[in-house]
C-alpha cells in the first residue's frame, strides 16, 4: 500500500519536470483527487500539451480505463452490501492495486469486509494524492535543467510491467500487448496507435482465450 506513496511521488516529480502544465502540484492534486488514475495522469499532460480534441481525449480514456469496469465485475457482490456513500466513493477509487487487494479481502462479504475495503480505498487514494503533490512540489524545486528526465515515465511503466510479469500468467498477455502496440505504431504512427492497438489486443485475447483463460483461481503452470 505504501508503494502507492512512492509511485505517486515519482509521478509527481515527473509531472513537474514535464512542464506541460503551469502548476503541477495543483494539477496533480486535482487529477488524483478526482479519480483520474495513474498512467493516465502522465499521458494527459502530453495530450494537453498537444491540444488534443475533446472527443479524442474521451476515446483514449475509454481505451485506457475500460479495464476498471472489468474490475468492478469481481467486486459487485462486495460493494453491493456497502452503504451508498461508501459504495460511490469506492467505485471511484478502483485502481489496479486497490482492486488486487480488495478481491483478496480476508473478511467475508458484510460489515467487516466493507470496512476493510473502504479503509483500503481511502488509504490508497490518500497515499497517492500526498505522493503526487509532494513529488510535484519537489520536482518544481529541483534546481537544474534536466535533459532526459522524461525517461522517468518510461522507467515507471517498466517498473509496473516488471511487477506484472513476476506473475507467470501475466507474461503472455504482456507480450501480446507489446507486439500489438509495435504493430499499431508501425502502421499508424506513435500518436495514433492507442485505438488500433487496443482493438488488436482485445481481438487477440478473444482468439487465444482457450489457451490463456486459466480461471480466476488457477495459474497456468502452478
Amino acid at each position, binding site marked *: 500500500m505504501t508503494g502507492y506513496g512512492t509511485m505517486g511521488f515519482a509521478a509527481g516529480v515527473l509531472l513537474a519536470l514535464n512542464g506541460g502544465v503551469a502548476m503541477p502540484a495543483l494539477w496533480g492534486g486535482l487529477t488524483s483527487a478526482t479519480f483520474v488514475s495513474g498512467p493516465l495522469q502522465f499521458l494527459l499532460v502530453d495530450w494537453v500539451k498537444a*491540444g488534443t480534441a475533446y472527443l479524442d481525449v474521451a476515446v483514449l480514456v475509454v481505451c485506457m480505463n475500460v479495464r476498471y*469496469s*472489468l474490475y468492478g465485475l469481481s467486486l459487485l457482490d462486495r*460493494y453491493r452490501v456497502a452503504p451508498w456513500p461508501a459504495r460511490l466513493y469506492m467505485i471511484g477509487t*478502483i485502481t489496479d492495486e486497490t482492486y488486487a487487494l480488495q478481491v483478496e479481502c480476508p473478511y467475508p462479504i458484510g460489515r467487516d469486509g466493507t470496512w476493510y475495503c473502504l479503509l483500503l480505498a481511502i488509504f490508497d487514494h490518500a497515499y497517492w494524492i500526498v505522493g503526487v503533490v509532494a513529488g510535484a512540489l519537489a520536482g518544481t524545486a529541483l534546481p537544474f535543467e534536466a535533459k532526459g528526465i522524461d525517461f*522517468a515515465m518510461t522507467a*515507471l511503466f517498466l517498473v509496473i510491467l516488471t511487477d506484472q510479469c513476476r506473475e507467470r500468467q501475466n507474461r503472455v498477455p504482456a507480450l501480446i500487448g507489446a507486439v500489438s502496440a509495435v504493430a499499431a505504431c508501425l502502421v499508424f504512427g506513435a500518436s495514433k496507435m492507442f485505438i488500433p492497438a487496443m482493438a488488436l489486443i482485445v481481438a487477440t485475447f478473444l482468439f487465444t482465450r482457450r489457451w490463456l483463460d486459466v480461471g480466476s483461481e488457477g495459474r497456468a503452470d502452478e
Partner: protein
Amino acid sequence: MNEKNLYLLSVLVLVSTVSYLLRALPFLLFGTGKKPAPVIGYIGRVLTPAVIAMLTVYCFAGYVKSGCLGTSLHGLAEMVAAAVTVALHLWRRNPLLSIACGTAVYMLLVR
C-alpha cells in the same frame, strides 16, 4: 480565466467523468443476482499487463520518433537505461530506486 486554463479544466472534468462512469458501469448494468459472461472476467484479467506493455512501447516509440536512432549512441542510451531500471527492480523491488537510477543513467548517457 484564460483560454488555456479553461481547456485544462474542461479536459479534467471530461476525463474524471468518463473514468468514473467506466468504473460505475458494471454496477449500473448488473443489478442484483445477474452475472456477467465469463469472457468479460477473462478479458479483465489479461488486459492490465497488456495495457501496461502497450504504454511502455508508446514511450519507446516516442524516443524513436524524436530521432534517438540517428544519434551517436543509436538508441543505446534507452536500452541501457531500461535494462538498469528492470534489473534494479527485479533485485530490490523498490519503485523509487529503480525509477531514479534508470533515469539518472539515461540523463548521464544523453548528456
